[in-house]
């Protein structure tokens, strides 16, 4: 039997102490923080939309009246109706927003949220709240910002720059179709843009809820996209991405002119819509000629360049 030397003794004590320390830390992670949590007072926030200043304290009643049923009193997307809704309401505590003018991963501008409230979100239960006054909407934007500490720690991203739209031509449509294939948009949105691509059934949002890709073909003249209805809105959607969904940002992989070409092609997938794109396609007998790949784009700047102004 070996004797217990002092160095071994110290080693043993040290080891036990380390084990005890890690054990207690592990135990603290396993045991939830039980007991009532006192409601945290909401930090007053402001929003700035043009010359309007919104105050969170002025929106408490409106939020409860119009929003809390879906988004929850705590803004966590757990209102009493959430279980019945598809897609699920936004969880404001994550401060992840689909419709932004800012690069992926960044906070939206106040104006982005302001516009979303007034525009509503198609393919969801979010109504068009354009019955509010501008002041009400600005106040609600400020109120939404109280739910996440991100709004205190981070600034919104700089809005992306949207170059002027070039003319719609058969060539741009043809190139857009080429990009639609090359960028594998069809895998989710389907070859005809019906939202029935091979990956469509497997898609989930950032909270693991099933989510469907946009069906371009279902729309008519009054069709809207998730984040708007104009060509600029479509451009913005795939440059900024739709955060919280599988729709990524293509800002780093596509040139502005290419992005516009893709917009022009996507419009042709809206077969029931009357527009310049479909007029050109109709004149060509509904056939899009095969695009012959060129050497490079004329504009080397990345599409996700920002104005640098910020908010």
């Amino acid at each position, binding site marked *: 039997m070996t004797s217990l030397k002092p160095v071994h003794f110290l080693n043993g004590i040290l080891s036990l102490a380390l084990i005890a320390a890690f054990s207690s830390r592990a135990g603290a992670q396993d045991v939830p923080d039980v007991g009532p949590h006192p409601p945290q007072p909401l930090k007053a926030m402001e929003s700035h939309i043009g010359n309007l200043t919104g105050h969170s304290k002025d929106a408490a*009643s409106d939020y*409860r009246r119009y929003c809390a049923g*879906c988004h929850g009193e705590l803004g966590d997307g757990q209102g*009493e*109706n959430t279980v019945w809704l598809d897609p699920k309401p936004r969880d404001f505590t994550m401060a992840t927003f689909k419709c932004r003018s800012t690069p992926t991963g960044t906070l939206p501008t106040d104006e982005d949220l302001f516009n979303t409230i007034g525009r509503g979100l198609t393919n*969801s239960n979010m*109504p*068009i709240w354009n019955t509010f006054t*501008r002041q009400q909407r600005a106040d609600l934007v400020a109120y939404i910002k109280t739910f996440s500490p991100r709004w205190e720690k981070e600034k919104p991203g700089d809005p992306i720059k949207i170059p002027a739209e070039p003319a719609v031509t058969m060539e741009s449509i043809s190139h857009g179709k080429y990009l639609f294939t090359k960028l594998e948009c069809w895998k989710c949105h389907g070859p005809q843009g019906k939202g029935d691509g091979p990956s469509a059934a497997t898609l989930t949002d950032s909270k693991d809820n099933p989510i469907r890709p946009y069906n371009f073909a279902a729309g*008519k003249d009054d069709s809207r996209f998730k984040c708007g209805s104009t060509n600029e809105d479509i451009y913005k959607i795939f440059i900024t991405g739709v955060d919280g969904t599988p729709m990524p940002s293509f800002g780093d992989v596509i040139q502005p002119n290419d992005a516009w070409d893709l917009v022009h092609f996507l419009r042709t997938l809206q077969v029931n819509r009357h527009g310049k794109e479909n007029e050109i396609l109709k004149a060509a007998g509904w056939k899009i000629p095969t695009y012959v790949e060129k050497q490079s784009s004329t504009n080397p700047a990345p599409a996700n360049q920002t104005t640098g102004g910020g908010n």
Partner: protein
Amino acid sequence: MHVWRQSRIRKKLPFAMPFLTVAMALIFVILSASPAANALPAFARKYGLRCSACHESWPMLNYFGQKFKDNGYQIMNDRDAPIWQNPSYWPVTFRILPIWHRVSTGKVAVDQGSGVTRITSSGFDLSGLDFHTGGTLEKNFSFYVLPSSDPNASFHFETVMARLDNLFGSPWLNLKLGKFELDNLLSEKRILTLTGNGGIYQLYHFIPVNDGNIFGQMGDNQLGVELMGHSYNDRTRYSAALLSTSDGAPGLIYGANSYSGFFAASQAFDAGKMGVDRIGFYAMLGQAPTTWLTAGGPNMPIGGSGIGNKSYHREGFVGQFYFGQHLDLQVVTQHGWDNAWFGQGYGDLVDQLNGQNNAPGTVLPVGSRAPSWNGVLFEPHYVYSPQLIFIGRFETIRMSQQANGAGYAGPAGPSASNLGNISDYTIGFRYNPFMTSRAGFAWHNEYNWLHQDGTSPTGTNINTSELLMGFDFDF
């Protein structure tokens, strides 16, 4: 909802009928009437919105609720068509109201004592029962059907309409056909008060004493067709309706060929921190029959044979003024005018049975004039929270010209200038203990006091009051 006939009764109070019968009828109407309201949790269930999203306090619509209604019960997204709903979804809501109330009516004619006394009664009671069903048949095809009963389960169709929404893709063109509520900005069908006299807008039902024109009651649902339009955000609205002059009664039982029109328009303004304020106007004008073919005697009119159309009109302004999140004021004014023939009691079939001269070539007594009046109502609300609202109302109607004016040579003689004037006061509150998208429940408390000039059996004034408490719920 019940079609209130109180005004029709009121006009006969002094002279035409035994007063006890009138009083009993009045009490019956008060006891049997259900509140006129359309609140449909079925819509909330469909869209997953709380009642408070569409209702300032249900059933009264707020601006968003008005837009939803104007869009044909659609929020204008891809979920409007019923194909999106679970097949088990059934857009039906029922509403009935258990209440306790105390009704006190002054100067009722009785056989005992001095012949006139105040009758006060109280007790537990029920309203009628409403079955609301409405929504979309397909995107931009909407409907509403409302069978309604009195407390004894005698049913009628209060609303039956189908609507083509957003014709040619434009919100400015919506066509409705059937029996429907007129486009009253301050809707009586969504009134927040429930007592017999406070549960209606007197302006919407006013008929001068002895007047025979029941057809100008713009608070009653009417049969006809309506073209309605609005801007994308509903700030600007208009409507034009062509109606059968029948006060909503089916079966072509009145005029052989009588039509009326109802027109309304309004504009809302963004008033910043005050809210969205709205002003507008309305006008109802038309023709109604005065004489009838008879069979079996002069008091046996043949339904649908009414001829001798005479004109009438009602017009006024409407204002909805919001003063921040808690306080608002609703205002309606009215100027009304009936042809002199109506002033002498011609018009309604019932009046024919009361022995009106129905012979061709009849002339009105000397001094017969076209009755006219002016009225206004103010209805302030204090919305403490989406769950608690305090309501007040002051309504007054003043005759500006009596049918039997100075020099009237008929048997009744000239009328006092204030005969039939009305002042009506209502206060109350509604407390909703919960707010969900599944059902509505309100603890309702209300007091109403009505004053009428010169309509008692002795020609003096009448005061009527009612205290009401109840549980107002729908599911």
